[in-house]
């Protein structure tokens, strides 16, 4: 379309100019004008209507004679004047207006929506002499469009609503499933104690159907014995309004439909509603757990009983062992006592003189009996120590006095080996020890020293105060001990590998006993030695300041 005129009109104008005479052309044009559905009208430059076709009558309701001569604004609603004037101004300047949608007034007072196109009419000299206006009634189209848009909007809203609703249903279903399939029974009761919510677990746990539960009093789920106080508890809980969790150690029970009782844990929380405070309860059946606990408890008790009886048995056996040891001690020492006694008596030769060979034999009997006695004593001592049957009587002791006694006791043996015994210069110190056991330790170490020292050598005892303890050293100038043997010599029945002929007379228990006795008195024992250069046995005892 060009110049604001429909194509058909334009085409006919070309036909008119080229092939037909003027009259024919006007008739064509008039026919086209009259059959057009659009309103086609002419206006002066000031807006006065000059022509009006049938289409215009259909669109606006006015007949040609009612419209021609009137200002075009009579078709407009109030308030349009300014725009109409601005359009006229545009046209007067040779511009056009195309497909501008405006609302106009039908003769019957209704709104007519039209799409208008305005173009200036120019004469042969190029002067603008008028305005051609085509107005197409688009009321119906607009109404349909609006209706369609409204429908679409409604549809969209509906779809949205539907989606929201579906999502809500889904969420609701999920939530419901969650509650329904919770491992715990979930109940809500109103302020009167009537059940308002019950999940599936509640049905299976209590044996009631949901219909039986809903609206009925929660008290049927409480064992008869506890029912009396239940309402009171519930009310005071609801008014306190604080959530109470599970696992408070309360021994709670619930009742099934068949009347059986089972242990439960219950957590409760208040839920404010319009009709008062409801209470939500989560109930856990702890039958299995309680059973497991009982089983664990009974097992524990069983083990404790067994442990106790075993302890008693161990104590009894220990007692028996001590008794056995005491009796062995007596039984072994009694015959040894007479063997040694008679040997000594015979050695005195008061009952008649012995020849050299008899004297030597008797010496063997005597010596070996003494050895046997030492062995028995050591075994008994060690077994008593290990059984915890040896009780120390510790006191503040003068080390000098104890050393003097022990040196006196060892001297005959040392003399017999031509080994000298020396008491050191620093023995004037007090120690906290059991006198008998200290003597035993010193005797053991000194006799060991003398045993492994050759004629002309020396054994000595000395002491040094070392902070809170006293270090006592028994030294010899004997064979010495190899480094690798220095710790093993405190083991039971250990005897140093390089033992000269004739000195294998120890029990192998002496140092083990010394170690035990020193440790029982709160000290430690160790040895420093080098083969060929003698040994230094050190042990510590608590320093007594009394």
């Amino acid at each position, binding site marked *: 379309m060009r110049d604001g005129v429909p194509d058909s009109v334009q085409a006919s104008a070309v036909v008119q100019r080229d092939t037909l005479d003027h009259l024919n052309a006007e008739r064509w044009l008039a026919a086209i004008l009259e059959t057009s559905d659009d309103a086609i009208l002419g206006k002066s430059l000031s807006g006065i209507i000059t022509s009006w076709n049938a289409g215009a009558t259909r669109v606006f309701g006015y007949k040609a004679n009612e419209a021609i001569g009137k200002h075009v604004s009579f078709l407009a609603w109030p308030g349009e004047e300014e725009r109409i004037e601005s359009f006229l101004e545009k046209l007067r300047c040779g511009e056009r207006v195309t497909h501008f949608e405006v609302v106009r007034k039908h003769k019957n007072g209704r709104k007519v929506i039209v799409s208008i196109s305005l173009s200036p009419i120019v004469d042969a000299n190029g002067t603008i002499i008028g305005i051609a206006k085509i107005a197409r009634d688009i009321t119906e189209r607009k109404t349909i469009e609006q209706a369609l848009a409204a429908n679409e909007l409604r549809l969209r809203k509906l779809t949205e609503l539907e989606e929201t609703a579906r999502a809500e249903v889904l969420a609701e279903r999920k939530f419901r499933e969650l509650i329904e399939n919770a491992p715990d029974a979930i109940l809500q009761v109103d302020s009167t104690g009537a059940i308002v919510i019950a999940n599936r677990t509640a049905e299976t746990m209590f044996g009631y159907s949901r219909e039986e539960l809903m609206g009925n009093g929660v008290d049927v789920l409480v064992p008869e014995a506890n029912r009396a106080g239940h309402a009171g508890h519930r009310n005071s809980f609801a008014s306190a309004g604080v959530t109470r969790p599970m696992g408070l150690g309360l021994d709670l029970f619930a009742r099934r439909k068949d009347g059986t009782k089972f242990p439960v844990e219950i957590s409760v929380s208040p839920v404010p509603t319009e009709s008062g405070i409801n209470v939500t309860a989560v109930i856990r059946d702890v039958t299995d757990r309680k059973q497991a606990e009982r089983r664990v408890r009974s097992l524990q008790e069983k083990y404790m009983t067994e442990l106790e009886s075993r302890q008693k048995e161990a104590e009894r056996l220990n007692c028996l062992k001590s008794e056995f040891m005491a009796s062995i*001690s007596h039984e072994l*020492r*009694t*015959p040894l*006592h007479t063997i*040694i*006694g*008679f040997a*000594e008596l015979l050695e005195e030769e008061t009952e008649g003189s012995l020849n050299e060979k008899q004297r030597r034999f008797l010496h063997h009997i005597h010596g070996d009996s003494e050895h046997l006695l030492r062995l028995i004593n050591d075994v008994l001592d060690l077994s008593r120590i290990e059984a915890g*049957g040896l009780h120390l009587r510790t006191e503040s002791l003068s080390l000098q006095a104890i050393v003097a006694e022990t040196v006196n006791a060892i001297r005959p043996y040392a003399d017999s080996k031509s080994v000298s015994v020396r008491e050191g210069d620093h023995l004037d110190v007090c120690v906290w020890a059991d006198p008998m056991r200290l003597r035993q330790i010193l005797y053991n170490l000194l006799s060991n020293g003398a045993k492994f020292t050759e004629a002309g050598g020396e054994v000595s005892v000395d002491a040094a105060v070392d902070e809170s303890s006293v270090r006592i050293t028994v030294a010899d100038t004997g064979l010495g001990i190899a480094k690798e043997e220095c710790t093993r010599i405190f083991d039971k029945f250990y005897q140093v590998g390089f033992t000269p002929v004739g000195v294998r007379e120890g029990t192998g228990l002496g140092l083990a006993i010394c170690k035990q006795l020193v440790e029982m008195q709160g000290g430690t024992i160790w040895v420093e030695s080098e083969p060929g250069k003698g040994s230094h046995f050190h042990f510590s005892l608590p320093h007594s300041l009394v």
Partner: protein
Amino acid sequence: MEIRILIADDTLSGRELLRSILESSGYEVVEAEDGEQVLERATAFEPHLVILDLQMPKFGGCAAAVALRKIPAFERTPIVALIAALPDGIPEQVAQAGFTGYLVKPIGPARLRQCVASLL
């Protein structure tokens, strides 16, 4: 006047050992085999010193010592206990029974003579 010593031990060898040592030192010795005999022989023999083995059948050394101490004649007589071993509590037990002292076996001639001499 000879000094009389009553010895009590349930073994023959034990009794013979004590008797031999003491007789070689010039003491007069009477033997008893158990606590009952100790009481019989003590009243008849009136010893200056009594040596009792603690472990004896019927009633032992401790019971015999207690019984002897109840007899006015033996109120001050030295009574020595012979014991095979020295478990905890023995010294107290011996003192409580009224013994003057004790000797732990084995007892050779030297120790026995020394002990007896010191008590007479």
